[in-house]
């Protein structure tokens, strides 16, 4: 039943998750479950205005309410500003002079219980001078539009202009040139666990912060700076995390800062648990984007040039928008060969909640536009969807060779063509042609898409992951990593890698979650970087520990270290395996033979990072990924032609090239979930409705998310390419299918009905009107 790949003892198979038992029995502790003695509860006071000057904040009534222990406002933070990088530090922990989006935090209270803290927030009096706002990038770019940030003229947040090859010449030489505009929705991250934090100061010089953060070394660095502490005195502890998907659970929230400040003021632990309402109204969302794409092709459908203009709503603060706009552009030259490429990115500040990274970050927008447009081109030219993808795809480079794109992105392994072939075969693509597509009110159609995603993302500064393997004297092993499992399964992968390398059992490994007092610093869980980079660190740390133990064994056996191997918890002489010793005995000998060793293996990720250079965002060149995954997907939809309701059928196949599936089950759930929750959901269901900065559907009833009944029972096909820069050949498996799902669904709707939905989600009303318009046109 379950597939097995490679010749490993543990890897390449279905590996049960190391944290699954705690999760399935309710024992796993998430941030909101954590209790410490003497705890106070916090609550954030928020602005009702989307854009207003703060004239005065009066906290006196709140302070007098019985049970209130402390109140904080932005002024307590002494002008501290933070952001993604030096030039983009434009946000305060709590707004001081101006609020720039609705429900931005302006003050916070710590009290004996949550009700009292909330009541006290109601007693805080804030005088505002409401200001006119801008609520779309098109309003923001208008001459004389109100400014979100006075020092940012034209409300320009991020701007890139890249030009590779000669796009104009290529368009002139093309047989067909098409220009289309596509739109992607303002989407919630979708985690069920709202952000939560407990902070306390064991003494005035030391801070402990326990929070739901996928990238715990973000608060480590930011809180040290904000509270003027050496990093050595900042202790970040990571509980179990209820998903992340980029954004808020990487970054800071007003509650994070307020918890630390109020704990400092009161000398007591302070806990904030964000409500889902606050999460849906103030947490970071996916950028809504308007993508205008112009593509030229030859008569037989070969891509000659693409020009993309991406206009994005960045929201109130810069956050990660510089990275978003880079990612939206960089992978336009993957997974198809593209000799000429031009890109203009325009990201504007607005008075909406800030936009940021989200699963499929950046690529999801532009690959959606490009892949749907490729189907439009295929239709015009009379070429099959699968054929046009296959022949434009980058071929798998020969071992030792690297494919370079026109914007200097480097690919050492590419299973794109194999993914396309396998999906086409699995859904019997050829046989579908000319088949009956309608039954009563229902029309059926299938769409095909191909996508790519960067794994092992490398940004401009600290990129290395590090690991410590501590072999205890009874043979059990502690694994210390700075990497954070937010649900993707990295704790299991890291444990499995260590066990595989050491030659012992998965049960022998006890992985520690991040505690910055003990675990090595790590960039974080974003950009599908954990398995690729933290996995390298795991291999290197385990190899280091193993080397030390093998030296001991070699001495015992009287042979050279190269003659000794460890396998199945046994150390032996390779040439005569009968000369062996149990793992526990080896470790005991090593630790107790006078003077006694302490076996600690250290390792960090080295591969890829300096190999091809880092990406240059302003020029648009270079690698953001250590390696790149490839995905093909075919999706069937059922369209109710009377009501416009779209339903995905179980006829949904995804082939994913993650290089090598370290844990086959985890790859499957990641691919299915990535396709479904953030892909299909964006294509068909999810969107925040806004009115002048106000979120109109800020709860999980009105903000429609697909549930089990809507879930296609997607089949996952593993495609192996063994990437030279990934651990055991692995690449990413979390985000590729988020990029292949939307174009496959939109093409399927077209296949069923003949209409192109260019602005997703294809909610019933939109589909209904598109079908009506088409019928009216046909009747004329």
């Amino acid at each position, binding site marked *: 039943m379950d597939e097995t790949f490679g010749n490993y003892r543990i890897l390449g198979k*279905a590996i*049960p*998750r190391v*944290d*699954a*038992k*705690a*999760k*399935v*029995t*309710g*024992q*796993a*502790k*998430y941030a*909101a*479950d954590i*209790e410490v003695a003497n705890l106070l509860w916090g609550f954030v006071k928020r602005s009702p205005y989307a854009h207003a000057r703060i004239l005065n904040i009066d906290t006196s009534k709140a302070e007098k309410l019985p049970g209130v222990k402390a109140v904080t406002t932005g002024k307590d933070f002494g002008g501290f500003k933070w952001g993604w990088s030096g030039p983009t530090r434009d946000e305060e922990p709590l707004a001081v002079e101006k609020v720039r989006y609705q429900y931005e935090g302006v003050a916070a209270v710590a009290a004996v219980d949550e009700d009292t803290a909330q009541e006290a927030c109601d007693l805080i009096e804030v005088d505002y001078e409401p200001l006119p706002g801008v609520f779309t990038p098109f309003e923001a770019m208008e001459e004389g539009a109100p400014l979100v940030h006075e020092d940012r003229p034209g409300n320009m947040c991020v701007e890139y202009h890249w030009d590779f090859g000669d796009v104009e010449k290529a368009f002139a030489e093309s047989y067909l040139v098409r220009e289309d505009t596509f739109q992607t929705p303002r989407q919630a991250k*979708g*985690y*069920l*666990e*709202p952000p939560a934090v407990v902070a306390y100061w064991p003494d005035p010089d030391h801070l402990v912060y326990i929070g739901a953060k996928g990238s715990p070394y973000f608060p480590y660095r930011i809180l040290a700076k904000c509270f003027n502490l050496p990093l050595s005195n900042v202790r970040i502890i990571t509980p*179990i*995390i*209820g*998903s992340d*998907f980029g954004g808020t659970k990487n970054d800071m929230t007003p509650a994070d800062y307020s918890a630390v400040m109020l704990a400092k003021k009161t000398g007591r632990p302070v806990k904030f*648990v964000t*409500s*889902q309402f606050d999460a849906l109204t103030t947490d970071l969302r996916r950028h809504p984007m308007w993508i205008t794409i112009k593509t030229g092709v030859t008569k037989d459908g070969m891509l000659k040039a693409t020009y993309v203009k991406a206009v994005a709503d960045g929201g109130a603060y810069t956050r990660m928008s510089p990275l978003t706009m880079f990612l939206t552009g960089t992978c336009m030259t993957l997974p198809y060969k593209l000799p000429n490429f031009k890109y203009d990115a325009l990201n504007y500040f607005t008075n909406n909640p800030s936009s940021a990274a989200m699963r499929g970050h950046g690529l999801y927008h532009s690959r959606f536009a490009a892949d749907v447009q490729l189907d439009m081109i295929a239709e015009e030219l009379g070429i099959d969807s699968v054929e046009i993808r296959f022949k434009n795809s980058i071929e798998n480079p020969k071992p030792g060779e690297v494919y370079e794109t026109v914007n200097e992105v480097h690919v050492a392994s590419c299973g794109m063509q194999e993914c396309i072939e396998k999906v086409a075969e699995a859904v019997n693509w050829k046989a579908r042609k000319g088949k009956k597509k309608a039954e009563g009110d229902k029309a059926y159609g299938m769409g095909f898409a191909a996508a790519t995603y960067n794994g092992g993302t490398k940004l401009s500064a600290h990129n290395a992951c590090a690991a410590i393997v501590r072999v205890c004297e009874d043979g059990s092993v502690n694994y210390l990593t700075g990497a954070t499992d*937010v*649900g*993707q*399964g990295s704790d299991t992968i890291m444990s499995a890698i260590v066990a595989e390398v050491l030659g012992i059992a998965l049960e022998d490994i006890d992985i520690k979650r991040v505690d910055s007092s003990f675990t090595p610093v790590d960039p974080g869980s974003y950009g599908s970087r954990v398995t690729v980079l933290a996995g390298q660190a795991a291999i290197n740390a385990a190899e280091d520990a193993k080397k030390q133990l093998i030296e001991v064994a070699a001495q015992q056996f009287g042979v050279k270290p190269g003659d000794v191997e460890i396998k199945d918890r046994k150390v032996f002489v390779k040439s005569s395996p009968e000369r062996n010793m149990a793992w526990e005995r080896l470790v005991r000998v090593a630790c107790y033979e006078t003077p006694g060793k302490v076996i600690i293996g250290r390792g960090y990720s080295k591969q890829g990072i300096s190999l091809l250079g880092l990406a240059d965002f302003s020029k648009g060149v270079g690698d953001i990924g250590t390696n790149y995954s490839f995905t093909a997907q075919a999706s069937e939809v059922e369209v109710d032609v009377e009501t416009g309701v779209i339903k995905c059928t179980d006829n949904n196949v995804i082939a994913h090239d993650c290089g090598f599936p370290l844990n086959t*089950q*985890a790859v*499957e*759930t*990641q691919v*299915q*979930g*990535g*396709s*479904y*929750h953030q892909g299909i959901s964006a294509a068909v269901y999810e969107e925040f409705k806004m009115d002048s900065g106000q979120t109109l559907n800020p*709860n*999980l*009833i009105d903000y429609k*998310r697909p*549930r*089990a*009944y809507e*879930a296609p*029972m*997607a089949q996952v096909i593993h495609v192996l390419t063994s990437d030279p820069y990934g651990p055991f050949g692995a690449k990413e498996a979390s985000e590729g299918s988020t990029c292949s799902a939307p174009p496959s669904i939109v093409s399927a709707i077209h296949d069923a009905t003949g209409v192109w939905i260019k602005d997703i989600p294809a909610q019933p009303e939109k589909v209904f009107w598109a079908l009506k318009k088409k019928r009216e046109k046909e009747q004329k």
Partner: protein
Amino acid sequence: MKGEMKELKLTVNGKPYELKVKPETLLVDLLRQELKLTGAKVGCLDSACGACTVNIDGKAVRSCSVLALQANGREVITIEGVADGDKLHPIQQAMIDHGAIECGFCTPGMVMSARALLAENPDPTREEVKESIQGNLCADAGYVKYIEAIEIAAKEMRGGQ
């Protein structure tokens, strides 16, 4: 105004309790804050996500949608009471073995919804399995393996038939 404390008698995971609670206390808050049973998760407090699902007299109920007093005289089972000591319930075991669980925040609710279904309907169709967890949002795993795991557990509980 906050009301006076009321008496509440119920059993939770087989253990009888006699408590005094505020009338406005939600069952989920009683479980999490008073009884320290934090397995039921709070995702929304709108009865929309299902992460707080428990079983009351065998039925799947979202514990944020009922007052603690509404459980008076009833038998409440939470995720902490599903396993038989160290022996996991077949639904729990199937979810582990089949790799259904990712971040795990929805998992307790999924187990409780599936437990109620299989107690009433030992041989559900796929549509019935989907319907039983329709009130449980998952954020990351994509439902496929949860649905399959419930089917595997159902078969196991029927003695492999």
